[in-house]
């Protein structure tokens, strides 16, 4: 080994704590980047593979009752490669021991063909997770979705009861399955609904018989010939899908269709896509910030490290080493640090990526989750780290090798100081000499102080951007579930019912207040743009279902006009005063052109609001409603829920508190993990900045500090001088970090706005406090490590050596 390489190893050993702290910062940067990118890629890949293997359809439509012979005509639509027709029904579900009524979506499958003829399903192929297929001809044997069986702890052989066409049927669970239609299981909302919503697959013949649907279907799914060309399964805007949907709508028109739609509007796909998109945003913004901060610290630290070796560099030059050899030597030093960081980062990223991907299995049910960490992701992260490391090193070396050897051998010119700005303003008497030393040191090298402040502020910002989610989600829940929907129980009817249902409902146990409303599926058109949304009619003065504009408060629909969620208005390209055409999907499928009374900035939903009377007049089927909101005495809630199981026509019962409980227990846990990881990362960054700064300052000022010790200053007093500067920098960095954290969070929420919701930017004081405290603690830990070195300053040597 060459002498220079030995020096390299020994130098590394001497500054090992610094090396490790810098490597850790790089590891966090790369780890965060790899984890987010690999999670994003893994979800995309897994979804793509699953969709292909299970033949997930491209186009969907529901109808009231369409004859089977229509299937052949649908298959003839140009571009369609396969058609699947079936009977699907939402029914009330009763599981022994559960008070709250639940909903099940019962789907007919050709059991005999699957089991006897071993024919794979044309599309939406089920993956049997446990148990077996129902035996052909065995009445009452069903499969349920795997997740429901898990959360409800339903073993194979368990019995459940459903209300099939008004008749209570006992069903036996013989197996659990997964379906590409229900990767995210929900009745319709974006919140996980696993506990209250089940998917049941039963023999198609038996289901058809129960509903007198023999020879007919009410749900159709299509695969398109060039479907594989459709990127990421997004088929909303492409011409083929639009043409197929239009033709499908025409064919189904006489059979009560509610309109066809592409994958983009399929609920499970939609939620999954939003999540993948969010992951992509998190996977680019945050890791970029991390990598930048890491790169920045690496740059600063190496710069100062090289500067501190000025004497040695001069000696190399005097001995005849050329600039290239010296530069290469220090690049090797940087490479070792960066390489350590990269290796740790890959390990960290891989672990974190697997963990986050694993957390997604809580929400998204795939038969297998394939985790991938692409080489290009690793290469990209490593390259950024290397460039940052080399950049910092080269910048520092350039300054030093430019010196003549003799010049470099002399100590740098004595530091020049001047009175503080404060003193020039005549306020000098305010500070003690120690405080002035601290302030003047900062003021003399404002660039360096600014870099330190920026690094620490960066870690404050990272903690905030990771922690504010809890505030934002709580605010979201508050607005959506407490202000906008203050009732305890929300009911959905299978078919519209007379408005007088209000009186029947108010007689049920514990019901204190009832409000009814109606939602009708519709296609909204404005010029060449259209959008499928629910038009909701509210009774005048509705208080249990409120329209909340986050900027202006509660809004109310105007007579003979619609009020649109801002996002809907934007999609349609309309504003207040414009008109939209409503093509209603119920009753006699009326059309109406209405004025847009205004737009509402709602946090969630894609709504068109009207007055109930206006909506009913347009639909033309009399004074009917489809939903009801109930205010209930808490004590009587169980009695009410039990009674609701026997109320005919009630398809869904949503108990707000249980919905929120589920949401909190899943989402909150994920947020906690996420926040925890980011806090640890940020703390490592803060320690990296503060500790390295203190070490380098200590090296630069050891002589001065030791002199003061000789003069009789205690270790504590001397520590204050050195650490006081860092304390000042941390003090400056915290407010700067608050501002940076606010804007970083704003950037993230802006980029993660989904199609149907947005995350409000709410950052509460405790979040700021937490971020500040994290960095202060990181600073104190760094200070304690450095303090140990101050205690061991060599006092004797300073008497004999010059700085």
């Amino acid at each position, binding site marked *: 080994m060459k002498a220079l390489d030995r020096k390299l190893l020994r130098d590394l050993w001497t500054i090992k704590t610094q090396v490790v702290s810098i490597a850790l910062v790089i590891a966090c940067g790369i780890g965060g980047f790899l984890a987010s990118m690999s999670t994003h890629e893994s979800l995309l890949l897994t979804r793509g593979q699953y969709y292909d293997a299970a033949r997930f359809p491209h186009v969907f439509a529901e109808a009231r009752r369409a004859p089977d012979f229509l299937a052949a005509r649908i298959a003839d639509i140009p571009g369609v490669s396969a058609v699947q027709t079936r009977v699907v029904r939402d029914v009330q579900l009763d599981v022994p021991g559960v008070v709250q009524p639940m909903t099940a979506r019962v789907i007919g499958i050709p059991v005999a063909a699957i089991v006897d003829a071993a024919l794979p399903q044309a599309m939406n192929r089920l993956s049997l997770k446990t148990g077996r297929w129902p035996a052909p001809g065995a009445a009452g044997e069903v499969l349920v979705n795997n997740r429901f069986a898990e959360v409800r702890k339903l073993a194979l052989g368990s019995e459940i009861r459903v209300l099939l066409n008004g008749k209570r049927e006992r069903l036996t669970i013989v197996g659990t399955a997964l379906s590409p239609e229900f990767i995210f299981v929900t009745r319709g909302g974006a919140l996980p609904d696993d506990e209250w919503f089940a998917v049941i697959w039963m023999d198609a013949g038996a289901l058809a018989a129960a509903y007198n649907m023999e020879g007919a279907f009410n749900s159709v799914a299509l695969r398109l010939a060039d479907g594989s060309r459709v990127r990421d399964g997004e088929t909303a805007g492409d011409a083929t899908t639009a043409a197929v949907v239009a033709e499908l709508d025409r064919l189904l028109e006489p059979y009560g269709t509610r309109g066809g739609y592409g994958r983009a509007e399929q609920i499970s796909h939609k939620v999954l896509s939003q999540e993948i998109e969010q992951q992509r945003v998190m996977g680019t913004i945050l890791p970029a910030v991390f990598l930048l901060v890491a790169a920045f610290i690496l740059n600063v630290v190496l710069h100062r490290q090289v500067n501190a070796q000025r004497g040695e560099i001069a000696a190399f030059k005097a001995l005849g080493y050329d600039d290239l050899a010296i530069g290469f030597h220090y690049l090797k030093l940087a490479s070792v640090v960066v390489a350590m960081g990269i290796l740790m980062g890959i390990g960290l990223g891989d672990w974190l990526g697997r963990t986050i991907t694993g957390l997604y299995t809580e929400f998204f049910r795939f038969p297998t989750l394939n985790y991938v960490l692409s080489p290009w992701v690793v290469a990209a992260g490593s390259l950024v780290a290397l460039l940052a490391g080399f950049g910092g090193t080269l910048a520092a070396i350039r300054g030093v090798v430019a010196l003549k050897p003799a010049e470099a051998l002399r100590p740098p010119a004595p530091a020049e100081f001047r009175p503080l700005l404060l003193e020039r303003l005549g306020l000098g008497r305010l500070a003690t*000499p120690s405080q002035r030393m601290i302030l003047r040191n900062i003021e003399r090298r404002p660039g360096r102080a600014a870099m330190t402040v920026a690094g620490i502020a960066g870690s404050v910002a990272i903690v905030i951007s990771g922690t504010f989610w809890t505030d934002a989600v709580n605010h979201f829940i508050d607005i959506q579930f407490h202000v906008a929907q203050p009732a305890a129980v929300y009911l959905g009817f299978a078919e519209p019912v007379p408005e007088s249902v209000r009186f029947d409902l108010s007689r049920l146990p514990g019901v204190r207040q009832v409000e009814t409303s109606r939602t009708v599926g519709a296609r909204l058109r404005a010029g060449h743009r259209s959008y499928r949304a629910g038009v909701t009619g509210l009774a005048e003065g509705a208080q249990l279902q409120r329209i909340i504009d986050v900027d202006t408060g509660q809004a109310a629909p105007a007579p003979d006009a619609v009020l649109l969620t801002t996002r809907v208005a934007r999609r349609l390209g309309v504003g207040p005063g414009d008109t939209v055409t409503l093509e209603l999907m119920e009753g006699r499928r009326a059309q109406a052109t209405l004025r847009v009374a205004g737009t509402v900035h709602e946090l969630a939903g894609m709504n068109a609001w009207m007055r109930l009377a206006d909506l009913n007049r347009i639909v033309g089927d009399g004074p009917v409603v489809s939903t009801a909101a109930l205010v209930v005495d808490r004590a009587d809630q169980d009695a009410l829920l039990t009674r609701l199981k026997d109320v005919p026509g009630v398809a869904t019962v949503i108990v707000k508190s249980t919905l929120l409980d589920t949401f909190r227990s899943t989402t909150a846990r994920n947020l906690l993990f996420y926040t925890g990881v980011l806090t640890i990362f940020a703390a490592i960054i803060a320690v990296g900045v503060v500790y390295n700064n203190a070490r380098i300052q200590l090296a630069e000022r050891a002589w001065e500090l030791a*002199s003061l010790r000789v003069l*009789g200053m205690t270790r504590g007093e001397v520590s204050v001088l050195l650490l006081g500067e860092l304390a000042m920098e941390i003090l400056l960095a915290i407010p700067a970090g608050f501002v940076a954290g606010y804007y970083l969070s704003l950037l993230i929420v802006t980029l993660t706005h989904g199609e149907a919701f947005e995350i409000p930017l709410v950052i509460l004081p405790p979040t700021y406090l937490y971020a500040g405290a994290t960095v202060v603690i990181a600073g104190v830990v760094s200070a304690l490590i450095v303090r140990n070195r101050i205690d061991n300053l060599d006092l004797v040597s300073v008497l004999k050596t010059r700085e």
Partner: protein
Amino acid sequence: MSEATTTAPAAAPPIFVARGLTKIYRMGEVDVHALRGVDLDVAAGEFIVLLGPSGSGKSTLLNILGGLDVPTAGEVRFLDHTLTGATEAELTRYRREHVGFVFQFYNLIPSLTTRENVALVTDISEHPMAPEEALEWVGLGERLDHFPSQLSGGEQQRVAIARAIAKRPQVLLCDEPTGALDYETGKLVLDVIARINAELGTTAIVITHNAAIAGMADRVWRFANGRMAGIERNPRKLSASELSW
């Protein structure tokens, strides 16, 4: 070496008493004997010049007297304090309360002005002079608000002396105070030290390898090879202006 020559005059109480001072440094695998059994007494108010070549042990002795280092063996007392066996905190307090240091390279704090460099010490002392008074003593009453980078070497050393005396120490320890200075400036600095010794009664111990300075002392200690090689008493102390080298 007779008892009469090693002890101080009976009239003044001894400020330092050391017996059998030994210091052994372990440098890697080699033991370096910096001090090999030194006995000494210093009377309050004495001016002592410590002469000797490099490596003779004079700096080690000064470090031990100043509470910067502890002997391997032997005992040293300052008035009624025993310095041997004192804790780090006790030594810090000793330096803070009783000792003024003057270094070869001044060791001023570059970020503080003249006045503030002195205030740094007066802030932590019990009965200090005003920084301005200390600077007046060394003839720098007019340069209170200059930074070290704006002062000549001699001026910087005088600030260092002002900083050392501002706390009214009993003893002033100077390690090669003129080592980095030119002839004229060096004499100016020595004159300040002599005046402080004469007018404030501060005991002064000055290390030098410039034999010409010996004329200023009450007594001259000659060091060689870790031992006291000889002690001389000057019948008449010379003033700095009378020195030449």
